[in-house]
């Protein structure tokens, strides 16, 4: 084994001890660089496998996608050399994220799904996983009848090695209940996810965020607060959860926990510069916009914020005009909404944005008692 290869395996082993996030991506990226210097195909392949994982779960999908394309090509060029299940499993990640990039056309996305579908069948797997993604994509495109139809088909198909883990499947069920407007049922379903008896790498991280607004709508603020505390704790270190931070911002604005909300805004704004997932970015900017609007209405005309140097309005003394900032965030979200709606051929994103201010009627102070750790 060459010196470079040894270093690759050292780095990959180190990466296994890390949590998803920037450090993990950096370590795997270094492994890929060393692997390429070694020129050994297997080493290059394994390093990229880990790199794809790190990128997908660390909020750098676009880089993960490039590395995945390479993996898939090498998989096809070298029959029998690499694990079929592992490449299909990664394919699922990519398919689940590809919608978040409005520059990728609808045709391309559908073609990708068909390819995954054909490959899954050739490998002897069922289509439960594929239909999960068909459901999600139709949901993303605001095609409700097709989404529900695909969800039903998915439910009837048996589980196999390619379908998601029990925690993720339950999270999907919770999401579907929410999609159907059954908030109370969704909260009940989420029980095993929230009490820790079913977990995985991204659940209940996502679940908590998705229940914040429904719980407020149900008037169950105490539980919503719990979801904020526990949920934020889990996502606060990984920029992949930029979108969920947006959900937490809306929750904090609705319950008038403004200091905490501003703290989150300062802490996570820098993520918008590294996370190129535009759907994530949309949800984050929408959250800030909503927060700033409420602050402005409450008479906070200026704000003191610690923003990164690259922030477009960066001011030396850290003072910002709330109104201008809110307006800018609205423009950011609107521009993104427009790109999504054009690709998706709906008005779902713009509508979501237009309807956001109506959430204000849910506003009611509900302070966090203890200062968070």
């Amino acid at each position, binding site marked *: 084994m060459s010196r470079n290869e040894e270093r690759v395996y050292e780095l990959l082993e*180190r990466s296994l*001890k*890390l*949590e998803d*996030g*920037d*450090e*993990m991506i*950096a370590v795997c990226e270094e492994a890929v*660089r060393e692997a*390429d*210097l070694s020129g050994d195909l297997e080493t290059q392949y394994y390093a990229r496998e880990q790199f794809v994982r790190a990128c997908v779960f660390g909020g750098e999908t*676009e*880089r993960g*996608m*490039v*590395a995945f*394309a*390479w993996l*898939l*090509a*090498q998989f*096809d*060029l070298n029959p029998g050399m690499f694990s079929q299940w592992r490449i299909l499993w990664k394919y699922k990640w990519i398919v689940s994220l*590809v919608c978040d*990039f*409005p*520059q*990728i*056309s609808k045709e*391309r996305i559908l*073609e*990708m799904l068909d*390819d995954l579908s054909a490959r899954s069948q050739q490998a002897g797997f069922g289509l439960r996983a594929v239909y999960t993604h068909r459901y999600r994509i139709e949901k993303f495109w605001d095609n409700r009848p097709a989404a529900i139809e695909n969800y039903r088909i998915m439910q009837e198909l048996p589980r196999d090695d390619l379908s998601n883990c029990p925690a993720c499947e339950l999270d999907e069920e919770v999401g579907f209940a929410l999609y159907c407007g059954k908030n109370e049922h969704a909260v009940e379903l989420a029980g*095993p996810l929230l*009490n*820790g*008896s079913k977990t995985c790498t991204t659940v209940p991280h996502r679940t908590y965020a998705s229940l914040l607004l429904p719980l407020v709508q149900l008037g169950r603020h105490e539980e919503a607060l*719990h979801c904020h*505390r*526990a949920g934020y*704790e889990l996502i*606060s*270190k990984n920029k992949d959860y930029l979108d969920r931070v947006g959900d937490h911002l809306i929750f904090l604005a609705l319950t008038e926990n403004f200091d905490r909300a501003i703290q989150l805004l300062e*802490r996570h704004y*820098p993520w918008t510069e590294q996370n*190129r997932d*535009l759907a994530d970015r949309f949800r984050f900017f929408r959250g800030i916009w909503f927060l700033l609007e409420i602050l402005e209405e409450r008479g906070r005309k200026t704000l003191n914020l*610690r923003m*990164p*140097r690259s922030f477009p309005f960066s001011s030396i003394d850290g003072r910002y005009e709330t109104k201008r900032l809110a307006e800018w965030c609205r423009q950011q979200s609107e521009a993104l909404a427009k790109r999504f709606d054009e690709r998706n051929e709906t008005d779902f994103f713009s509508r979501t944005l237009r309807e956001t201010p109506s959430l204000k009627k849910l506003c009611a102070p509900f302070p966090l*008692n*203890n*200062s*968070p*750790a």
Partner: protein
Amino acid sequence: MDYKFQVNLSGIIDLLSKHTYSSPRVFVRELQQNAADAITARRHFEPEHHGEMHIELSGDGPAPTLIFRDNGIGLTEEEIHLFLATIGQTSKRDESFVQRDDFIGQFGIGLLSCFVVSDDVVVTTRSARGEGRTIEWRGRSDGTYSLEFPDREIEPGTEVRLRCKSGSEQYFESDTLIRLARHYGSLLRFPIHFAEGDLTALINDARPPWEQEFENPLFEREAYLGYGRDLFQMDFFDYVPLKSSIGDVHGVAFVLPFSPSLAMKKTHRVYLKNMLLSEQTEGLLPDWAFFVKCVVNANDLRPTASREAFYEDETLAATRAALGRQLRKYLIDLAEKNPGQLRTLIQLHFLSFKALAVDDEEFFQIFMKWLPFETNMGTMTLTEYIAEHKVIRYTPDRDQFRQTAAIAAAQSLCVINAGFTYDAQLIERVQDLFPSIQLYRVNADILLLSFKFLTIDEQDEVAEFVKLANQVLEPFQCSVEIRSFHPGDLPALYNAGTAALFKQSIGETKKVVNGFWSSVLDEMTSGIQLEEFAQLCFNYSNPAVYKIARMRDERLLKFSIQMLYVQAVLLSHRPLTSKETVLLNEGLLGLIEWGADTFGEWVQ
């Protein structure tokens, strides 16, 4: 009279042993837990009662027998039916757990774990309340059980008798039992006696240090560190006693004698009401506190169903904050009283310090100046940096750092590599602490600005060369400049920003993927701004470059440019793309051929 379970007991046992319990050995924990609960319940109405527990192993007969006996509250006939009902309920649920705060239900579930090591379980019990009849319950793993009322009268309490099932022999050995009983129950406050024939042992013979009084600090230190050594076979750097009235938590944090990796799972040893809950508890301390390993007992925190962690609620958040404050105070005190020790501690755990400084203003103010940063001139603390350099230069990008470190050093510029976790965030706030210091974000472009421009005459002389070099390197998305810089023996400096590197990796990938994926990548890239070209800056101070730039032989010039380009890429530690590898080969051969053509007559 025999009754029949309504459920398939062997199925449940299988389920329990495979899912709920991480190993068969937990039956020891469950039986100790049952005894502890029974004694607590009895002391509720008999506060002076002295609880105790006996574990007895006897080896006669084909299979050894194990007895767990306590003098707790005991069970009435009605309660026995209740726990049986609970077992039934358990099986109907999807999850294999019930609410553990119910004593009787807990008793039944605890008992189930015994079937993992024993085919029949005999419970002899007499309640300390009510009519106090002795009851004998005999359960078998085939799902049947019998209930009898023997004439003999026993002391109030409960006795559980197990008979070794084939394959479980190791759990019926005194070494294993003593070890396991200590593992789970060493903090329990009532004596646990173990006996096998003449061999007797007290399981919980010493109280933990936080329950002891010490005459002087040295004894205390020795007691705590000794406790840590016994538990973890590790000599800890230091210890911090922990206490929180919220959650009713007592214990100790041991400072690790090595640097843990940033996100290594926090593995604290946690007791709930003096019974071991888990050795891998997370969420008890703030995230930044990864430099310690804790042992604590909590009386008022709620465990999750899996009993691996605590339920994330307000109480836990407040407890975490309280414990965090104590660790923080420990560090601040150390800064005042023992700076030498603090320095060692920072060397080991600077990541923890940085994590805390990012979020905590006061902590930032106190510790920032002592934190170490990697620079192109070695690792140094901020204080050391400022002592030598009036201006702070940093780069938040590891690739840029790698490419520019040597060259910046040659200009005597000290650059901080802020591409690691937290570093950029901290450095960008350095003016909060030192308002007069200047702060520059360095990248290769800015570094280039510090290189000497050529005079107008010199520029004229090399104009043709630069034009040709730009043409030759255009396909590599690289633009060319020529300046004068140190060190003179470096002919050219290659520099590619993150965007340029990403673009190159897309280019490389497109060479192997099919048409479909090629278009996916094109579409993806179209949405991301990646115009950035890489740059190659030739060094006019380098004698070879000085000569080449004046050469007029286009063929030789082309080969030279290609070779210098490849060499510069290699020096930047970036792997060559396939096109560059071809270039390297062609360039080398080309030069040899050129040499042979030009000087051919000399060879012959």
